[in-house]
């Protein structure tokens, strides 16, 4: 049975903090709560990557998190999109010169999956509106991956 298309649009997201300062994390939660309320579209945070369509990642990758984000990525079922929220996750931002920061998130994801689909959301931290726009872009990418575009 083919599910209604609306089911595809109810994105379930798993939030991974790869070493972020919390700034992006609270804006992600703000996007879920009543003022911005993405839950009205059926987007919600889930507690396991195995249930997720979208991985929301924030923060520069610390040495201890590098193997873990690879593991989390592998646990997420296909098709999947990664939303990288914030400057640090995209470029490592202000933390560029440390012994414990290994690099931006896409670098590690490309090591295990060269075709990884990433939506980059810049900002320090991005506004909830920007995060919602990123989620909308993730829809389009997922539709493309499912061959519905």
């Amino acid at each position, binding site marked *: 049975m083919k599910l209604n298309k609306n089911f595809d649009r109810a994105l379930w997201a798993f*939030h*991974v*903090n790869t*070493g*972020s*300062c*919390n*700034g*992006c*994390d*609270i*804006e992600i*939660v*703000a996007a879920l*709560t*009543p*003022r911005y309320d993405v839950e009205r579209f059926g987007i919600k945070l*889930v*507690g*396991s990557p195995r249930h997720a369509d979208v991985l929301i990642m924030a*923060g*520069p990758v*610390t040495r*201890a*998190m590098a193997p*873990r984000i690879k593991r989390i990525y592998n646990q997420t079922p296909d098709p999947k999109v990664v939303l990288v929220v914030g400057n640090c996750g995209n470029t490592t*931002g*202000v*933390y560029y*010169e*440390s*012994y*414990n*920061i290994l690099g931006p998130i896409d670098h590690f994801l490309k090591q295990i999956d060269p075709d990884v689909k990433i939506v980059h959301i810049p900002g*320090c*931290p991005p*506004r909830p509106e920007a995060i919602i726009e990123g989620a909308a872009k993730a829809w389009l990418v997922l539709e493309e991956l499912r061959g519905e575009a």
Partner: protein
Amino acid sequence: MSKCSYTLPIGPVHPALKEPTMFKFVMDGEIVKEVDVQPGVNHRGIEFIGMRRNPLQVLHLAERICGICSIVHQYAFTMASEKAAGINDIPERAQYIRTIMAELERIHSHVLWAGVAAHELGFDTLLHWTWKLREDVQDVLEYISGNRVNYAMYYQGGVRRDISPEKIPRIKEMISAYRREFQKLADAFLEDPLFKHRTVNVGVLTKKDALETSAVGPTTRGSGVPKDVRVDQPYGGYADLDLKPCLPEQMGYPNTGDTYAKTVVRILEVGQSLDIIEFCLDNMPPGPIRWEMNVNKVLMHMKKAGGEAIGMTEAPRGEMIHYVRLDPGDENVSAWKVRASTYNNIIAWQKMLVGAQIADVAIVAASIDPCIGCMDRVTVVDGETGKEGVMTKEDFYRLSVRKTRRLRRMKGKPSGGGW
């Protein structure tokens, strides 16, 4: 280790600390016997990075130590580096603006905490309600500084942006809206029988332990220890206010040090913050907002200066201290030590968690105000067989919610709805 005990690691991701924490619990059935906290997963080496940059660059780094209490880190670093460089005549208007920003941040942080605490107990309606209320203060922060998080307001010698008279009505409007709405929210927490059941006598930190471990902030004030940097060593605009530390007894609740007492302290502090902001707006001294208008001159001054100092602020989570040393020959910050509040509360945390039920771990851990929402996985190691099972954050959260439901049934409330 008795036969039935097993080890339960929780973590490692845990966002509200500077360094997210990994817990290892030794469990006896449902009761926590021993706790070991292993931070470091989120260690970014910020002090090391800071010692390779000049004081004005470090401002932006200090702000990004924590996204929730970014202002107080910047405040503490600014004060420490000003004192180290011998800049002591900060304009009074700038001191008042700094105080207003710090108090706005305290409101946003405490309301955020209340939402997280409600979520940990399974009251998601309350989470959404508190976060809706939080948006009001976020609007004002954005109105003053231009950003919702990371405000970039302070720098050595003053502040970057003024709070001009035409901005004041908008801020006052927020204050009166909070005075109207916040009491309803406070009642939803404090009058609720189930919230009481889940928090009274849960996660107790005795006064003796609080003093011994040098705990700080609402964690220690809940136990009746009146430590508050704003009162003990008033800095900036706080020097003109005769503040008193908020203790649970002011609301008629004994200083027991349990999770309920800590909630009372935070609710009292939101009211106190509103009063402080109002006082500062009404009594804002005229004059410049910067010690030196030219940023390059400030930087040159800092490069030539030598000295050491500490900057202490009262963050929403407690005392925060930065130590800065500047050497005349070195244009970078020569030594920098950041001590966030939770760092001192780690040992107190261990004392609070021992003896707690596993279903209460979420709320007890949250009671010192690290956000446990990002706890990503829990591995259960069975002590006897050595078998490992994995509990996700969801399972863990479900345990907490189930306990609330069980209590609700015992109290004979209709199940499903009503929250």
